[in-house]
């Protein structure tokens, strides 16, 4: 995805949430399709290896780079959505 020259967001919350749900579904995480923004990794039984897979998918899909230290505080679906949206805006403003 080409960076947005205007410096505004190129992604929506719905887009990112849908991709996260689809990836969790590919990982056969129970309840993935209806996972809410509040759902935590621990509630979804998503471990560090699942998370690595998810991050890689989001990076490839949305053209963002998620660093390890940014990943540490990410404990829920909503946290991940927020992070991707922030990185999208930062990239667009760069």
């Amino acid at each position, binding site marked *: 995805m080409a960076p947005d020259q205007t410096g505004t967001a190129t992604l929506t919350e719905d887009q990112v949430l849908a991709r996260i749900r689809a990836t969790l579904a590919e*990982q*056969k*995480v*129970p309840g993935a399709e209806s996972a809410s923004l509040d759902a935590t990794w621990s509630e979804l039984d998503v471990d560090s*290896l699942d998370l*690595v*897979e998810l991050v*890689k998918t989001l990076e490839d899909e949305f053209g963002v780079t998620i660093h390890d230290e940014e990943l540490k505080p990410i404990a829920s679906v909503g946290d991940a959505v927020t992070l991707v949206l922030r990185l999208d805006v930062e990239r667009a403003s760069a």
Partner: protein
Amino acid sequence: MSREVVITGRGVVAPVGEGPEAFFDALTSRRSGIADGVGACDEFDSERWMTPKEARRTDRYAQLAIAAAGQAAEEAGLPDGIEPERLGVVMGTGMGGLSTLERECRNWLEGGDRAVSPHTVPMMMPNAAAGLIAMRLDAHGPGFQIGSACATGAHAIGEAARMIERGAADVVVAGGAEAALTGLCIAAFRSMGALSREGVSRPFDARRDGFVIGEGAGAVVLEAAEHAQARGADVRGRVAGYGASNDAFHITQPDADGRGAAQAMRAAIADAGATPAEVGYVNAHGTSTPFNDRIETAAVHTVFDGDAPPVSSTKSAMGHLLGGAGAVEAVATLGALEHGVLPPTLNYEEPDPECDLDYVPDGPREAGGLQLALSNSFGFGGQNACLALSAP
């Protein structure tokens, strides 16, 4: 032996059937699990044993191991009432998570480092099954896997029995598993000339031309006799003795005069405190390769000195399960002891002058009063294991 080791649970996933009863019934009904030149566990449904998410992250060899160990644990009533620190898991595989390795190699060649799954290492590592089984059973005792190619399953059971004898654990889930029906593995065995060109497993027959590759897993719950008695567990058989040896001859060919194989059988019989005359049946390694069957026959002659008991190869019905073979065949041997029936060698029609034992070609055969039987397993690398199993 310092402590007596009994068997309180059995599990098997094999091309001829799942579960010790259905499996033995198939063997003694002369059914074959070989189709299109391989012995596949087509009926196996991983989701009977794990969630879809777990199955996705578990190589097929470990899935088969989990199922066999799960059956054995159910039969033995594990892990209820077992002290976790005294419960061990010793499994084995000859090849490890080959299908995972092949898939990820392809991903890597096509997409570079980034295309490699983070699940690759935990799926392909050869000790994954023991780890996953221990997690399920809350088994905090000794846990590891053994690798001795086609002797793996028998070594795992034998070494686990030793752990119980010397008091390192009271209960150990032991066995072996393999799921190597992959393109690379089949090509590799074919390229060394080990596989039957005809795709027929006919151990000891003059026309035998190699083994048929199969997949599957076997497991047993081994337990100190006094521990089983104290908790009122049903005893399905005993590990009366175990013998192991190394040919130290050639990386794939058996020692020409069967010295290593004979040494393992003699050691197992001596470990059982028995004499060769007390052995009523031998479940042969019997791979259907020209070398093995001739040399194993010679080794049996050496050990039994003209008075060999009936010998059959259940690989004739399911192919060679490699690292799973020894454990699956131990379960077959336990079936023979329990039912007093010897499973046949299928496809044996043309005698080979160099293979002149009674291979039970007309079986199943009644063997009432069968008390002691051997299960032979000989691996590439020259590594041999023999289990002496006895009736409860």
